[in-house]
């Protein structure tokens, strides 16, 4: 019987190589248990609304009005919607001949790209060109598009932090490139070690790999660290001297939970450093509506901004974007509202500010609660979540636990996370999904469960962990 094209053996090998643990084994097992009636707390993905976070009202009002413009014609619309939401809906509808139902420019609605440019200018103090800002269906699409543009074959390498958000490793596999890992230093608060990075690059080159790009995730995912200005300078200088394009994933820029290192964009540091670097270093920056205080994951809104890319390259990127016709228009409007929110004096400003502040301060409290909670557990060490939405505690698994995992045919952290899931319903992602140093194990969880559920969740975790450690290590010699 002839092989059929869609027999497993006949599939594209690159597809088979892809791994994306965020919705992998643990998530699938958790979903099974949920179907069986077990209460599951999904902390596997940065998905705030799924855990009870409320959408910011203003954005929803604007999009609802754009969705159903007949509301704007009704004399009573002012009773149901604040004046500034009404004005903003009209503002966006004026930008979109055909409203929400028409394909926009393949790069996104020009007026919204201009708003994004104004936001970037205001944030960084340097002007930018709306023509070099492309809106996308979530930041992930932008990342995948740029990586696909760069990667020619398996000898093209991309420097990726380890641990990393597995979109990067998955995309590199899918496009047939090579992932060149650089390890973040856990003991030094997940900092970059340029000695290590240079070594890694030299090794890759000696194996015939052409290193083309460097990814930084700032704030980090899963690690949460916020880069200092000095760090970013070093990264920029490194990329400049090594002829790499810098891919700056800055989707968590609004989620900062400490005051020592506020967010500073790679672009700002680059322009502060001045020419020739600022005129020559190639940079692509990514942002999204899925994170921050908005958490509008389901809208699929995002953008990438290109700096110092040659016009012919931009043309090719445009060409590929045009094949997908356009990013979804509601997502574009969410982006507009996010980067151009209500201002002092606007009717919605007090409510908007109160809602955002509430989310932000609660996340900040939860970041602290979770870190402290993990650190109070036996054999668990956890760096503080300086930013982003995750906690990435190190679990020091006893040798007997590692052996038990081997016998069960599972990676040790997968084994631990499965047992955690079955005992407590907490669904995490094993550290192996993000990459970690050999023999060091972690799990990633989010800080997103509702604040009032935190004490119960942390105590449930502690109970499980401490009894797991007792089981595999014996009594604590304290």
């Amino acid at each position, binding site marked *: 019987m002839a092989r059929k094209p869609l027999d497993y053996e006949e599939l594209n090998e690159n597809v088979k190589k892809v791994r994306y643990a965020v919705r992998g084994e643990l998530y699938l097992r958790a979903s099974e248990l949920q179907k069986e009636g077990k209460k599951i707390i999904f902390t596997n993905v940065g998905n705030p609304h799924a855990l009870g976070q409320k959408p910011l009202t203003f954005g929803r009002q604007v999009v609802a009005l754009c969705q159903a413009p007949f509301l704007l014609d009704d004399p009573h619309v002012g009773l149901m919607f604040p004046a500034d939401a009404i004005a903003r809906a009209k503002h966006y509808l004026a930008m979109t001949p055909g409203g929400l139902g028409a394909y926009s420019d393949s790069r996104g609605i020009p007026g919204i790209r201009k708003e994004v440019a104004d936001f970037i200018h205001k944030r960084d103090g340097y002007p930018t060109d709306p023509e070099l800002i492309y809106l996308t269906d979530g930041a992930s699409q932008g990342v995948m598009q740029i990586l696909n543009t*760069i990667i020619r074959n398996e000898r093209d390498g991309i420097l990726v932090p380890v641990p990393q958000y597995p979109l990067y490793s998955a995309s590199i596999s899918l496009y047939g490139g090579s992932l060149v890992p650089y390890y973040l230093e856990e003991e030094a608060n997940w900092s970059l070690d340029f000695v290590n990075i240079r070594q890694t690059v030299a090794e890759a080159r000696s194996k015939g790999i052409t290193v083309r790009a460097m990814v930084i995730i700032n704030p980090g995912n899963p690690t949460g660290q916020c880069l200092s200005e000095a760090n970013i300078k070093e990264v920029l200088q490194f990329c400049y001297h090594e002829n*790499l394009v810098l891919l700056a994933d800055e989707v968590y820029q609004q989620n900062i939970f400490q005051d020592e290192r506020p967010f500073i964009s790679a672009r700002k540091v680059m322009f502060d450093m001045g020419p020739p670097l600022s005129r020559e270093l190639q940079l692509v920056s990514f942002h999204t509506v899925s994170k921050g205080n908005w958490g509008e994951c389901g809208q699929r809104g995002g953008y990438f901004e290109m700096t110092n890319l040659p016009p012919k390259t931009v043309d090719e990127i445009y060409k590929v974007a045009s094949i997908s*016709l356009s990013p979804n228009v509601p997502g574009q409007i969410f982006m507009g509202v996010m980067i151009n929110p209500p201002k002092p004096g606007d009717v919605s400003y007090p409510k908007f500010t109160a809602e955002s502040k509430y989310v932000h301060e609660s996340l900040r409290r939860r970041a602290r609660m979770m870190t402290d909670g993990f650190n109070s557990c036996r054999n668990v060490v956890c760096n503080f979540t300086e930013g982003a939405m995750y906690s990435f505690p190190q679990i020091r698994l006893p040798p007997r636990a590692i052996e038990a995992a081997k016998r069960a045919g599972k990676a040790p952290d997968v084994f631990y996370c499965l047992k955690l899931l079955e005992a407590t319903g907490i669904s995490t992602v094993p550290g192996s999904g993000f990459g970690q140093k050999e023999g060091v194990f972690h799990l990633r969880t989010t800080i997103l469960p509702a604040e009032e559920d935190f004490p119960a969740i942390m105590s449930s975790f502690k109970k499980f962990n401490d009894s797991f450690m007792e089981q595999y290590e014996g009594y604590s010699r304290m």
Partner: protein
Amino acid sequence: MAPAASVAVENLNPKVLKCEYAVRGEIVIHAQRLQQQLQTQPGSLPFDQILFCNIGNPQSLGQQPVTFFREVLALCDHPCLLEKEETKSLFSADAISRAKQILATIPGRATGAYSHSQGIKGLRDAIAAGITSRDGFPANADDIFITDGASPGVHMMMQLLIRNEKDGILCPIPQYPLYSASIALHGGALVPYYLDEKTGWGLEISDLKKQLEDARSKGIDVRALVVINPGNPTGQVLAEDNQYDIVKFCKNEGLVLLADEVYQENIYVDNKKFNSFKKIARSMGYGEDDLPLVSFQSVSKGYYGECGKRGGYMEITGFSAPVREQIYKVASVNLCSNITGQILASLVMNPPKVGDESYASYKAEKDAILQSLARRAKALEDAFNKLEGISCNKAEGAMYLFPQIHLPQKAIEAAKAAKKAPDAFYALRLLESTGIVVVPGSGFGQVPGTWHIRCTILPQEDKIPAVITRFKAFHEVFMAEYRD
């Protein structure tokens, strides 16, 4: 001394460099420049408006959305509205109850959360029910992957199927260039089969077989057959017999059938109707496991025309579990498609029914749009056929006309001198004289030595006479200039 730029055209992914997409290509970019010129220097061109007839984007040219769909979407976007008294007087009762029903299927009523990577289960159930009701054969929610428009689904399948440049995909010529572009992007080989213009763009199985064998003899492993029904750009609706033959052909040759069915609700002739390939396969007795088949549907076309929402799905049947896992895995890397698009896909496949409060107005809106499209298709077809050297097949369905322009030799030489394909030369001159934007046939593929343009039927009905007049005037001048 600065090092050479890392990411320059010389060292980009060659597959990116190779692919092309004429629908938003050179002519359109030029049209956008001219549009800007009209704004900054009014009166500087021989027309006062650019008319984009290059892209199937109905609402950009004035088509109104279906009211019921927008009511439901607005309520799902801002569920607080459901608690307000005023809502009852602004929204129809069945839109309110449908929104409530949809929200109940979404965990936590959270329309801002990432959903299941195949799409929200309750919405997939509604889509499956809609397919079952359409075809008379059961559909399964687990076979459905809701995507950001139909295009990402096509990309996913190409990615899965194409391992290297020796993997071939049979594509109709002319075709919608998403197929040629995605095959190039994923590094495969496009194996063309020619639709026959003389028989209303008919599909001959004998030609299909010939192209397949040709490709195989060259060492190409042909893996799938793309069929677009109704056709784009050609507009033909396949006859049932034709569809039986195609299914048999795929079965015998071991090909995956990729059925692009996004225009299933755009049929303008009484003697043809839409049959999904799944329905055809099942009615032939082919079961779940007998034939790998993917059906693509979209919210961008039909009478709803919601292009900007990016909603669509693929229904996958006849695939083994390990393969489905791979498809799921690739879908999960992007987490999920946008929720608005998911909701819309479920509404399109499960619209108001007889007895629903909104049914009468929904039906009136739907019928008005489809009847108007049919009239515009006919008016433009007749107009093209009256012009010297132009022959235009009927648009039985979809949203396009694809007239053949018999260009005089002088015009072809002028095109060569201008370093343009003759149909691109004609389309550019059309644009510069009239502001009308069409896509040259070379963007879709055509029998070598023949020239076409693709023009949509989408300008509002009251603009059609002006379009026809302007086009006629231009064409007469062009032919006078280049007539042999």
